[in-house]
């Protein structure tokens, strides 16, 4: 009898405990699905995987990574607003994709349709050459490009992407003409550079992180030097005002209540603040940033659009 009451009491307490987080507005409402609108293995996937264990540590709930590739992210983003708006679904977002794609034609979503909850990192653009390349510095490369216009070839990941836009912008600032060759993803662009199929690569700092001393980075498009590559100068130091890269974050469906949007933002912020997580990201060549939900996000998005759209126009990816 006493045993029974004990069990009953324990059961009631447990029920109350479990029921409490399920009340309105709390995050997470249970396990959270984190949809990556690309295939597995890319940088969006890797960073989501890095976040996964920390989310579980914070909330004791699983964060399940799933994929919805297609159309360079468009398939996922065009379906985002039809998904559960209770915080149980979050989706990766990538810039400049979400700004440029809708301007290229009907891709099923507009930039403003996407509610960005948090932008948590970026992969800064960088010029990477093979370790045995004749170009020791950015000046060498620029001199070579001036000598033979168009003949210096750069591999890069995709058209209308951060790599492509920065290549156009840099050519303009340096007064040179080079050839950008679009590859499918960073992996293919790195392969082409390592194999000597192209003279250099417009890649990301992650390439330096992954390839070690097989490659040399000539400059990175950051405000300050990357902590993992203290010897590599920034473009600004060399006289070219470029800070750019591919930014990544998470978004929620537009029907998500205000407090849940904020809660998602806080969750990603908390993961971003974990020193162990930060170190793993930096080791991989990523650069962390913190743009939370709210007016700060709106201003930040506006600034990015002002930067990307003219570059895309100059690159001929949009009219």
């Amino acid at each position, binding site marked *: 009898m006493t045993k029974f009451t004990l069990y009953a009491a324990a059961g009631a307490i447990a029920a109350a405990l479990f029921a409490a987080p399920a009340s309105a507005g709390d995050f997470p409402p249970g396990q959270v699905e984190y949809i990556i609108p690309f295939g597995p293995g*890319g940088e969006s996937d890797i960073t989501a995987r890095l976040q996964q264990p920390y989310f579980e540590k914070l909330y004791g709930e699983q964060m399940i990574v799933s994929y919805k590739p297609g159309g360079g992210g468009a398939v996922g983003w065009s379906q985002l607003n039809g998904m559960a708006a209770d915080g149980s679904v979050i989706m990766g977002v990538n810039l400049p994709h979400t700004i440029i794609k809708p301007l*290229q034609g009907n891709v099923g979503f507009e930039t403003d349709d996407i509610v960005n909850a948090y932008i948590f990192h970026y992969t800064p653009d960088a010029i990477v050459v093979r370790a045995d390349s004749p170009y020791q510095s950015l000046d060498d490369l620029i001199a070579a490009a001036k000598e033979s216009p168009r003949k210096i070839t750069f591999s890069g990941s995709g058209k209308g992407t951060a790599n492509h836009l920065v290549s156009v912008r840099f050519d303009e600032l340096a007064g040179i003409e080079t050839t950008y060759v679009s590859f499918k993803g960073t992996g293919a662009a*790195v392969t082409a550079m390592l194999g000597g199929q192209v003279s250099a690569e417009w890649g990301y700092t992650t390439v330096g992180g992954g390839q070690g001393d097989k490659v040399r980075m000539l400059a990175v498009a950051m405000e300050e030097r990357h902590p993992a590559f203290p010897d590599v100068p920034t473009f600004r130091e060399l006289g070219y005002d470029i800070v750019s890269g591919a930014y990544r974050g998470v978004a929620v469906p537009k029907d998500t209540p205000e407090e849940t949007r904020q809660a998602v933002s806080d969750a990603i912020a908390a993961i971003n603040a974990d020193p162990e997580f930060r170190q793993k990201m930096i080791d991989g060549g990523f650069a962390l940033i913190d743009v939370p939900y709210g007016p700060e996000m709106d201003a930040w998005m506006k600034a990015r659009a002002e930067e990307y759209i003219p570059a895309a126009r100059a690159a001929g990816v949009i009219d």
Partner: protein
Amino acid sequence: MLDFFLAALTPLNLLLALAGVAAGTIIGSVPGLTATMAVAVLVPLTFGMPPESALILLGAIYTGAIYGGAYAAILLNTPGTPSAIGTTFDGYPMAKRGDGDLAVTIACLSSLVGGIVGACALLLLAPPLAEAALAFGPVEYFWLAIFGLSLIAALSTRDFLKGLIGAAFGILIAMVGISETSAEVRFTFGSNTLLGGIETVSALIGLYCVPVLIELAATSGRHLKEDTGGTRGFRLPEAFSTLMRHKLNVIRSSVIGTLVGALPGAGGSIAGLVAYSEARRTDRRAPAYGQGNPGGIVATESANNATVGGGFIPTLVLGIPGTPPDAVILGALLVQGVRTGPTLFADGSSIVYTFIFGLFLATLLMLPVGLLIGRFAYRSIVRAPKAGLVPVVAFMTIIGSFAIRNSLSDVGIMLALGVVGWVANRRGFSVSPIVLGLILGRIAEEGFVQSWTIGDAMGNVWGQFFGRPLSLVIIALTLLSFVYPFLPALTRALRRRGTALPAPSDKREPADPAAILRDLAGIGVMAAIAGVALWQCAGLNPEAAVFPRTIATGMLVLCGLAALETLLTRRVVEDRSYGSTGRRAGVVLSMAAGIALAPVLGFATAGIAMALGLMLSSEHNNRSLRGWGLLALSVAAVITVFTIGFREALSVPLPGGLIF
């Protein structure tokens, strides 16, 4: 070295390898659940493990999934994973004539050899092979894709022109959606559904599996011939002696698989196709390849399992994934904090060697595991009554094509392409060239546009395409491969000193006017598709338009030639098998209804409703009420188990709808 070997052999690692191989084999055998998915789904499981064990588990799953793809290829004519495309060519004909068990065992032995060769290369030759793979540039990838396309000649012996037209059609399908290299939206006709392009694996399932289901229902014959001598066990001795007869083939294909696997981004499907092409070219044994020659299975299965070890070469040495599943594993490694790169090998880091020995272990475990599961798969499919087989397989195609990117529109496209494939087949356009075009078209386009851009910048486009030694080797092989099917006719012509055209080998009666009209109509539809593509190209930027425009123009010319051939020779290649049209329509309509109802009723309930329609369409015998009840119950049970498995074990968000 020995201590690494022992480290791989801890009881935990042994258990993980065994579980991984078994899970991988089962997942790989379901059409639509690819090796990439199998690995991606199970990655989170490995986060808590030490890196060695995590790698062993993932490698074992990968190995098993690549092999498991062979079951569906052999028994259902549907590659379970894209790497097994070539296995359907000879595997299904073998199964049809009653040798399905032998085919499955041959696939298991070949996969074992391929896996061992790939793992040996990884152990002994990884750093130099990774360097060598880098010599492969965009031009070489372009020519490699063309080399794969040269298989059209082999796969369309009935009608070469129609094979070429089909391949062009496949390439055009591959161009739908946002182009990766030019970021242009192409051939979507304003539809958001088509924006993401035609998902390759869903398309494969539709093109290969739906026609099989339609024909299964239409006729009363058995799906596969039953084994005659009762149970013949695994037919191991027979399979072993087949492998011995094909020893050159198995070694060559394993080497091809290792090398192609080591090329970043090429993957198992291309490795299998290249090995198949080479096996066919060098082997003149009867029956012909494509008609049930075990050599075809030996080639693809050894090659695709060799890509496992081969693909890890650039993954571990360069940090660049060799195949799609490697991309997932690379991500898992980064999360574990393992830095890939040359130093990983140079430092003699224990993790690499423990992993490689784990891969050997997994490959060896594949023999018992694979044989047992294969035997089970074979028996269930041979013995299942048609009215049970059709709905279960149909449900698998639907759930499999959904799971790839959790999209019901992909399932719709799968069914639509299945009907297209069925009609095309009847009109003499085989499905395999279409699939080759679909898979290789994107690789060919990327390589073409990149080579063009680089060549143009250098002011030497011709030199870029034809001036590189490696390219020349691939071009030579391609020419050989294209010419080979016509060699008998050519030698005959040469012997007669080219005085007369060779006599057609099969002297068929001229077709009646109705058949000729049907044929012309089929060719006309293809020509119209090419015309629409050309018209659509007008609005695209040059980079996005150049490849599809070239293909569509060629397709129009080929259609003209094919029409001319039909009119001149008055001979028609078409299939006019007889069976019930109503039952055929029943299959398609039931599946369409099942797909439409899934978001309303829930996945499992809609699946069961669909299954009832399919049972009625495909049952040819009289069955008692009790028999119907039992059958319906077991089909419903299988569907429910699949749904729960996908939802819970694989975390696929299947629509729940009203009921389940």
